[in-house]
């Protein structure tokens, strides 16, 4: 079987170290927010349920 060689031209840039660092910081911030949201919703739900959280009569 012959080997096909194809050249792809990608329309892209190479990020500098500073840009990569800033992208990483943005990603970490988004990750922290995404982790905090369900924790806040869970905590608020438990607080609203109050003593009823132990009621498992269903």
């Amino acid at each position: 079987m012959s080997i096909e060689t194809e050249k792809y031209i990608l329309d892209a840039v190479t990020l500098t170290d500073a840009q990569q660092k800033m992208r990483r910081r943005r990603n970490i911030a988004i990750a922290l927010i995404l982790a905090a949201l369900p924790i806040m919703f869970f905590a608020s739900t438990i607080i609203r349920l109050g003593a009823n959280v132990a009621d498992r009569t269903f």
Partner: protein
Amino acid sequence: MSDMNVEIDTKQTSHGLNAMVGEDMADIRDYFELLKPSVMRLVVFTALVGLVVAPGYIHPFNGFISILCIAIGAGASGCLNMWYEHKLDALMSRTKNRPIPSGRITPDQALTFGLILSVGSVAMLGTLVNWFAAGFLAFTIFYYVVVYTMWLKPRTPLNIVIGGASGAFPPMIGYASVTGDVSIESLLLFLIIFMWTPAHFWALNLYIKRDYENANIPMMPSVRGEAHTRKQILAYAYITAICGIMPSVLGFAGVIYGVSALVLGVGFIYFSHLVYKHDKGAIAIKSAKNLFAFSLLYLMLLFTLLLVEHSFNILFTFNIIQFLGV
């Protein structure tokens, strides 16, 4: 299966660079700057006072969620304001280094960021606290972005008078987070900030008038003249001082607050009189700067007094254990 050697050639075209540079030049700090943190601080503080002053009980965690949502909503308003005004911001020395005019964030990114935060803060406040407060927050964002930024600001020198309402709503939202409604007490908190805003902003306008003129924003000193603005500042200072003591007069606050509000109100009127009296030269600019600085101190002290007084009431009049939800 065929063997394929893929040779990748990365090519830096102008299109590619334009698409990437805006996105990757932005740091977290730039996004934070879009939220107007200095305005957000004042919003958080006044909303906290509204929340503490309100009768009734809210669990401290839900209280924290309320303040967080109000802060994010206020930040979203600031972000959408910067998106809409980025061309004007480039013309003013005070704002030309903001993230959008300086090119660190693209307008589309700011718009997306602002909209996500607006919807997110309202949805979260509604789901976790109450929908009345959430509706109020949504209205405040709409009022600041559409009514003030897009409609009033470029059209009338009364922009700051009517638009100032958006800065006065946060304590009412904090209050509504606890009670789920509006009362005379929360309306008073609104009125104090609403009446305080024109004197505060016009004092600033008196010494940075040229910036607003360059951007063609019709502020009172440029449109109606400095003499008229000085009269208006004085009138609003008197009204603010009267509104400031009303919580004590109507029995919502104690004697310590009342006496302090009276003294601070006299100070506010005194500094406004100096602005009215000195209308030429370096002393006129100094008077305006002094009034601007004192107006900030006035509002901070007034709301701090309310916060401290009501915090003591909560801790000593009511049961501390019930407050902590233990």
